[in-house]
């Protein structure tokens, strides 16, 4: 007598605690080992690109907030930069500095959320709270300048919406100092922990070739030895004025991605500190035509801009036909590109590793589905 066996298909999600949103993974498992993985996405699709065609240029900015809601500033920036490229506008100096400071603060906040939630996935409860405690002070600064904690809607075509309130720059300097102290604590609590290392070292290995073939970007690419950071390789805004390193690791596993992100927080702190000391004391914060948001009418043409978001390379392609509304907006969302690698990366891993691998990609579902 033979026992009938069949492959078990495990549906992970769309409602599952560690998919960070509505994401579904169809896992074919034999025992606890995965033989085939199918990522299923689109549960959060809102048609952002199509919506943009019905909006005047500025109206789409709050929608970019809602792509990668943990890193809204860079999304704001890359869209505004795209429209500015069409218009050919020069951005005032002070506005550029404010943009860089807020973008980098936001990157710190985004990486802190990743740090907390990743450890929560792995089973450590406290780091989540510690990360959110530190993120809170960053969000307070962003709240003071933009009036919102996540959906900032701070940048405008031609500059930024508000100047920094009195004493804000000093507060930012104080904040990043506090964050860099916390990073030390993070290292003591987690980085050296043997259990954490055993969960991440050698897990979800990505080779350099895979990274390039799949078009992965951001900390994932840099953790596999691909030294690409648009802030360095293709400096946009005023990033060429700051002295910072691009953390790169060679191993390509989850632990390398972890180390790269922690190092990136430190680099962001460096940039914020430099920007805070270089920022001109006063000046214009928006291009003289930018304040009239109803009147922005780029000449017919097309533009592609890209920037380094906390998740990877975010790109915006804007086509104008000379009217007040864009003809087409295409968004290159880093999480969407990065999440596709799961179908290769998960094969051969155990169910327990799924969480460790998926978490290490740092995917935000608002961005995957747009």
């Amino acid at each position: 007598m033979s026992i009938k066996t069949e492959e078990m298909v495990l549906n992970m999600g769309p409602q599952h605690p560690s998919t960070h949103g509505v994401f579904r993974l169809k896992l074919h498992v034999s025992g606890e080992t995965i033989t085939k993985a199918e990522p299923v996405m689109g549960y959060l699709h809102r048609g952002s690109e199509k919506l943009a065609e019905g909006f005047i240029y500025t109206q789409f900015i709050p929608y970019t907030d809602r792509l990668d809601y943990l890193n809204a500033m860079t999304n704001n920036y890359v869209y505004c930069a795209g429209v500015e490229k069409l218009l050919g506008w020069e951005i005032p100096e002070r506005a550029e500095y404010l943009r860089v400071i807020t973008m980098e603060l936001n990157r710190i906040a985004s990486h802190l959320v990743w740090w907390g939630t990743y450890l929560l996935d792995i089973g450590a409860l406290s780091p989540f709270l510690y990360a959110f405690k530190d993120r809170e002070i960053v969000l307070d600064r962003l709240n003071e300048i933009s009036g919102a904690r996540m959906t900032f809607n701070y940048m405008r075509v031609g500059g930024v919406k508000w100047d920094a309130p009195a004493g804000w720059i000093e507060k930012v300097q104080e904040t990043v100092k506090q964050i860099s102290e916390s990073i030390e604590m993070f290292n003591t609590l987690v980085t050296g922990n043997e259990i954490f290392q055993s969960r991440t070292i050698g897990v979800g290995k990505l080779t350099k070739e895979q990274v390039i073939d799949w078009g992965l970007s951001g900390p994932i690419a840099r953790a596999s030895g691909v030294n690409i950071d648009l802030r360095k390789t293709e400096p946009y805004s005023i990033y060429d004025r700051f002295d910072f390193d691009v953390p790169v690791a060679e191993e390509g596993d989850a632990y390398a991605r972890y180390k790269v992100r922690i190092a990136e927080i430190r680099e962001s702190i460096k940039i914020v500190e430099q920007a805070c000391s270089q920022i001109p004391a006063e000046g214009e914060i928006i291009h003289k035509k930018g304040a009239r948001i109803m009147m922005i009418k780029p000449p017919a043409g097309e533009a592609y801009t890209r920037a380094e978001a906390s998740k990877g390379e975010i790109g915006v392609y804007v086509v104008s036909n000379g009217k007040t509304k864009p003809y087409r907006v295409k968004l290159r969302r880093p999480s969407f590109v990065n999440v596709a690698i799961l179908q290769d990366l998960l094969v051969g891993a155990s169910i327990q590793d799924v969480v460790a691998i998926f978490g290490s990609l740092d995917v935000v579902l608002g961005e995957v589905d747009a």
Partner: protein
Amino acid sequence: MFRLLKGFGVTLNYFRQKKVTIQYPEERVAMPPRYRGIHRFFPDKCIVCNLCVQVCPTDVITLTGKKSEENPKKKVIETYNIDFQGCILCDFCTEVCPTDAIVMTARYNNLSSFNRAEHFKDIKWLSDNHIYGNYEESAPAPEAGERGEVK
């Protein structure tokens, strides 16, 4: 080998520290004046230019005006409604308003309710929303405590 033991020191250290959470209904976060909360409306200032309706990305503002009794060339506001089911608090209405008739306050609570109709705020409710914010007639923002709560 035993670097994980160091972590115990970290957690024990936090055990002794002061707690940072804000006990919500009793204590509240003091939002900065720029905070984009629920709107306040000044009917006297409104010139019924309809810009806010045009700029609203989610089309949640509806308004009607009528001819002013004193000066037939001018218009005055008659009804002004914001449907907070759809409002994304993007602040564009405030930004385009030429007379600062619609402003945002730092009010962030009471945006949720059990009844959809309650999200539909009319001119009277919006005019009576006397919360501080980033506008001229605003009361001063409350002082924030050590953890950012209202003192």
